[in-house]
């Protein structure tokens, strides 16, 4: 696991502390629908106060896993424990979890206030207490002046906050959020992300967020579980997942990446040397991986970690040559499409430190691509 590579010791990383007791334990959970395996032997430990994201493309099983935590689906095999209690046979209405639905699922015939109060009413909380807690939570999500409105009289962003308030008001042990920001436009989504983190921080509730948006997962999460075809591909902090993806799929899914196929030439504890015909040269990586020389590997290299130069740089490794085939100007940075001498096209991003008028590299320029030995990641195929 990637977590073993980096060991920043602090109280905020209970997953690195062998003494810490996980709050939610998912043990070998499998869910099959007929012949289709939606969730395949997933085991996860999630700690109190975490904001954990389940990230993956559509059909990867992330929502099914969430629905099993809420109790809407029963695992075919495996166990789920919340705060030490086995959830098998416990129906949704008796679980210490609340869910924020992707469609929000607000009751259309009730006002905002009634929607939020619904959960407390089911628990037989006294009217005065309900009133107080609803008012508090509406204050928190800044909806106080909309309390008497019906859902259809609200904007998408407001509805999303009602759904959040409704799931938070019972102060569940675990809050499950299914694509919570999916229906919002980009600006609102960014603002809401920080609001969500703020609220989570203040209430200290454990969140599990399902999302297909890697940017959202990176911003929000303490840790991310990347899912693929029903399995957990990697679990780690956003930084670990981005910098040390442990397989091709994760590297490709999180952010943008260039992948080169290659063969290991030297494999020492301190470094590896990989020869890649696809890259058109040798790649030197300053951290070792354990494998035999001659083994086939993938080298993942992030576009922003490559330096472009028009000079014809000569160095024995970590230096590729190519021709600029396209430039996409994004404002703060530019994306260059480079055709390497081997014929492979790769992406390189460069900060636009100068104004575009002074842009040095142009279409069809011949360029040298260099990168630090720390930048590439070798992935065993």
């Amino acid at each position: 696991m990637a977590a073993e590579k980096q060991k920043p010791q602090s109280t905020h990383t209970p997953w690195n502390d062998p003494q810490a007791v996980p709050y939610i334990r998912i043990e070998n959970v499998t869910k099959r629908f007929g012949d289709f395996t939606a969730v395949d032997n997933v085991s996860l430990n999630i700690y109190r106060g975490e904001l954990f994201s389940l990230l993956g493309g559509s059909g990867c099983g992330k929502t099914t896993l969430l629905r099993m935590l809420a109790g809407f689906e029963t695992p075919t095999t495996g166990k789920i424990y919340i705060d030490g209690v086995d959830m098998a046979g416990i129906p949704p209405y008796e679980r210490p979890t609340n869910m924020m639905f992707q469609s929000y699922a607000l009751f259309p015939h009730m006002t905002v206030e009634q929607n939020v109060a619904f959960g407390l009413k089911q628990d037989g909380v006294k009217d005065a207490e309900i009133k107080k807690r609803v008012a508090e939570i509406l204050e928190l999500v800044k909806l106080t002046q909309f309390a008497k409105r019906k859902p259809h009289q609200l904007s998408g962003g407001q509805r999303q906050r009602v759904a959040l308030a409704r799931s938070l008001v019972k102060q569940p042990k675990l809050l499950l959020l299914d694509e919570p920001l999916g229906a919002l436009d980009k600006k609102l989504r960014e603002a809401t992300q920080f609001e969500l983190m703020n609220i989570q921080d203040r209430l200290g509730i454990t969140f599990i967020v399902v999302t297909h948006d890697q940017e959202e997962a990176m911003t929000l999460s303490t840790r991310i579980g990347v899912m693929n075809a029903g399995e957990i591909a990697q679990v780690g902090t956003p930084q670990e997942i981005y910098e040390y993806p442990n397989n091709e799929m994760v590297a490709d899914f999180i952010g943008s990446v260039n992948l080169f196929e290659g063969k290991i030439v030297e494999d020492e504890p301190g470094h590896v040397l990989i020869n890649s015909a696809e890259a058109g040269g040798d790649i030197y990586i300053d951290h070792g991986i354990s494998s035999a020389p001659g083994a086939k590997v993938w080298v993942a290299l992030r576009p922003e970690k490559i330096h472009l130069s028009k000079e014809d740089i000569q160095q024995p490794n970590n230096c590729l040559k190519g021709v600029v085939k396209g430039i996409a100007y994004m404002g703060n940075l530019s994306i260059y499409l480079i055709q390497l001498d081997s014929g492979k096209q790769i992406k390189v991003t460069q900060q636009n430190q100068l104004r575009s008028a002074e842009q040095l590299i142009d279409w069809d320029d011949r360029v040298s691509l260099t990168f630090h030995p720390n930048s590439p990641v070798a992935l065993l195929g």
Partner: protein
Amino acid sequence: MASDSTSPLRAGGVGKTGITRLMPFSTGLHALLLKLGLSSRNCVILVPYIWLTLFFLVPFFIVLKISFAYMTIAQPPFTHFSETGHLSLNISDSYGRLISDRLYIDSYLNAIKMAAISTVLCLLLGYPMAYGMARAKPSTRNILLMLVILPFWTSFLIRVYAWIGLLKNNGVINNILMAVGVINEPLHMMNTNFAVYLGILYSYLPFMILPLYANLEKMDLSLLEAAADLGCKPLKAFFVITVRLSLPGIVAGAMLVFIPAVGEYVIPELLGGPSTQMIGRTLYNEFFSNRDWPTASAVAIAILILLVVPLAIFQRYQDKQMEAAE
């Protein structure tokens, strides 16, 4: 389109502008219709309105007129307003009788009572059926829907007649029960209120099921999950969410059953006994047996007013509610 607010075409309204834009050529007829304020869309709507005016509104006014006339032995058997040279309106004979003679009030109240009970029975039987259909697999759903509609392929009258064969003393049901040995002498079912209820329930059940099914089928099931997630047990969620949200369907179904059931003539006539006095039957007797057209017309007008006015008010209220719910 929104930018050219200075265009003279805008004066005619957005809808008309849209249509004129779609049809750049203006034929002579089209231009004429437009001058009269009739866009193509309005023309299409006009056809059913003309139909309803000719075959509903005009006859309604004829009936209204007859209800104020005097009965005479003539052809047709009522007087005209200006026969004697001055306007003669008769209210005491027709409308007066509706109040003074208990027969009319009683049969009206009885009709309402029987229609109301039938509506409740239809709802109690139809709701679980519609619910089952709406929650069935999509492939099964169409078959079930087909089965509900299937009886319409046979004439309503024939289906009611068939019940006579089933219910009469030497009918199918009694014969089977006696052959099996459950009963020794035939049950008296024909010509009773029981038979009328059975007939109405049987005939009008699809009218209850179809609007309920349409409503329940499009319900967002994640609302029930949300309710369960918030701690609501399934049975309570059924009443607080499912039934509450299907109210428009319940009201639509209830109206489709209740309104025609109040004026029902065929079922009480064929299956009911002499004690089953419903307003439709009274009206028929007034018209054909007594040949008292003014009183029969007054009965018809009274049914209409007593049914339509409260229903129209209720519908308005319901519309507001539905608007709020969506």
